[in-house]
C-alpha cells in the first residue's frame, strides 16, 4: 500500500506518452489530458504496471465542452471530453485522465478489455454524448430507447418534436429545446393555456 503522488503518476504517464499534458483545473484539481490515439498505451500502463496497478475504474464519464468557458490551460472548444477516474485498490492512489474527442470525429479507443466495468460506462457515454468507442463488443444505447435520435447530454441537443406519435409539447406550448444558461436571451413567454379545464 504505497500510494504514489499525482505528480509521480503523471511522470510515468508522460514517459510512455509524450503528448500527455498535466493540466490543473481552475479550482486546482489535477488531471492528465491524453490524446485519443495514446489512450490504449496509457491505460495499459496504468492497469498493468506493478507500481501503478489501477485496477478499479471508479467512473468513466464525459461532458460536452461546447459551452464551457475555457482558460489558457484548457481553451474553449467544442470537443466531447471523456473522463476516466482510476483508482488502485492495492496502492490506494488515484488519477484522472481526460480524452477530448472532436465533435466531427467523435471516436475514442475502448478500455473495456482492461476494465470490464467500462462495458456499461462506455455504452452510457455513447448513448448520452455520442462518443464512439472503437473496439467495444456491444456498443448500443443503454438508457434511451434503441431508436432514439440524438445524444441528450450534448449542449446542442434538440428535443424531438414527437416520439412514435407522442408529441413533446402540448398544444400552445413553446420551448426552445435547450436549457438556458446565464447570458442566454429571454425566451418568448409561454401563452396562457385556454380554459378548457385541467390539461
Amino acid at each position, binding site marked *: 500500500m504505497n500510494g504514489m503522488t499525482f505528480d509521480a503518476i503523471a511522470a510515468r504517464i508522460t514517459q510512455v506518452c509524450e503528448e500527455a499534458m498535466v493540466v490543473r483545473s481552475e*479550482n486546482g484539481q489535477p488531471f492528465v489530458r491524453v490524446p485519443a490515439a495514446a489512450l490504449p498505451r496509457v491505460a495499459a500502463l496504468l492497469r498493468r504496471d506493478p507500481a501503478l496497478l489501477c485496477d478499479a475504474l471508479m467512473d468513466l464519464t464525459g*461532458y460536452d465542452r461546447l459551452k464551457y468557458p475555457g482558460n489558457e490551460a484548457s481553451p474553449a472548444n467544442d470537443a466531447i471530453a471523456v473522463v476516466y477516474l482510476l483508482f488502485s485498490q492495492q496502492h490506494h492512489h488515484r488519477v484522472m485522465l481526460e480524452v477530448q474527442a472532436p465533435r466531427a470525429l467523435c471516436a475514442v479507443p475502448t478500455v473495456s478489455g482492461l476494465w470490464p466495468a467500462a462495458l456499461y460506462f462506455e455504452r452510457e457515454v455513447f448513448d448520452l454524448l455520442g462518443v464512439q468507442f472503437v473496439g467495444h463488443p456491444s456498443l448500443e444505447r443503454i438508457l*434511451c430507447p434503441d431508436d432514439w435520435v440524438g445524444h441528450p447530454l450534448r449542449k446542442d441537443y434538440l428535443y424531438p418534436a414527437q416520439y412514435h406519435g407522442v408529441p413533446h409539447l402540448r398544444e400552445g406550448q413553446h420551448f426552445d429545446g435547450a436549457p438556458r444558461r446565464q447570458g442566454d436571451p429571454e425566451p418568448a413567454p409561454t401563452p396562457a393555456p385556454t380554459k378548457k379545464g385541467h390539461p
Partner: protein
Amino acid sequence: MTIEAITLGGERMQLNMGPHHPATHGVLRIRVESDGEIVSSCIPDHGYLHRSIEKIGECIEWPMFVPYTDRVDYVCAMNANLAYCVAVEKLLNTDPATAVVVPRRAECIRVLVAELNRISSHLIAVGAMAMDVGAYTPFLHGIAQREHVNDIFEKLCGQRLTYNYVTVGGVAFDLHETASEEIASFLDQFEKEMVRFNKLITTNTIFRDRCANLAVVTAAEAIAWGLVGPNLRGSGVDWDLRRDEPYGLYGELGVRVPKGERYAGRKGAVGDCYDRYIVRLLEIQESVRLCREVLKLLPPAAAKANDPIGGHQADVSKVLKRPPKGFVHCRTEAPRGEMGYFLVSDGTKVPYRVRVRTGSFSAAGIFHKVMRGIFLADVVAVIGSFDVVVPEIDR
C-alpha cells in the same frame, strides 16, 4: 403476467422477464435464453426508468438538485442526498473563499439519518431476496421495522420515502424534541427483532442451500467489473469509504467493515449470494452501533441555525451563486455502494455537469456474466443478492 416465449433453435427458448415483475426489483427487463431449466444467456434491458436526472442537473440551480437525488435511489434517499451535498461541499472547499464548514450537530444528524436509512435500505434488500427465494414472512417483518424508521423520519422532515432533508451545508431542519429517545428505543427493540429475523431465515438450511455457491464473484472480478459496496465486500475485498476515505463524522467513529468469508461453510464460496446477504446483515448491526455512538456525541442545539457547533445548517446561499470554477469528484458510501459525483462547475449558479455514478449500474453490468449456467429459479435470487434498484441504474 411476464411470460412471452419464442422458441429458438432446438430446445432453447427466450423468456422475457418483463418490466413488470412480481418481484420487487422495479422496472427491469431481462431477456433470458434457456432450455427450460438452465439459463444459457441473460441480457438485461435498461432505460425504463430513465428520467434524465443528469440533464435536469444542468438546468436547475445547485441546491435545487437535492430532491432529484432522492429519486436517484428512493430506498435510501438520505444517503443519496448526503452524497450530493458532500460533493458540492467538497467543490466549495476547493477555494478557501467559498469554503463551507458544516456545523458539528449537523454532521452528527447526517450520520444518524444516513445510518438509519442504511438499516431500512438493507432490510428491503435482505427481505426482498428472502421473498424471491420463497419466504414471504421475513420481508414483512423487515417492512414493519422500516415503518418505525419512517415514523421517525416523518416527524423529522415530513416525508416517509423521499426526504429532501440533507442540504448543502447541513440538514434542513433540526431534530425534533423526542428524536433521540425515539431513535434509542427503536434501536433497542430493533436489535431483538433482528435476532428473531436471523433465526427465522438467515440460518435456515433451505435458504442457505438456495444461496450458497451461487453466482460466485471473486475479489479480482469484483474490482474489475466495478462492483462496490456490499457486493464488493461480499467478494472478500476489505474496502469501505466510511473507513478508508472518511467524510463527515465517520473519521472519528471508526467503522468496522464486514466482508465475505464463506459464511455458508463447506457448501459455499467467498463471493456467493449468501456472502453478500450476510455482509448486509452485519452492516445493519454496525449501523446500529454507529447510531448509538453518534447519539452520545450529539452536541446540544444552538439558537442560531448556522452556529458552528450546535447549528443545523451553514449559510451557503451566497456561495452557491458563485461556486468555484472547475470540477470535483467525490464518492460516499451509500447502502448500494459508492455513489460517486463528478461535478463540473462553470462558476455560475447552475451546474455545468452533474454525473451520478451508482453501485447498481455496475452490478447490472455483471449480470450477463454471472447468470450463465444457473437454474432458471436462481435468476431472481441472484438479482436479489446484488440488490439492484432500477432508479439507480437508469437515473
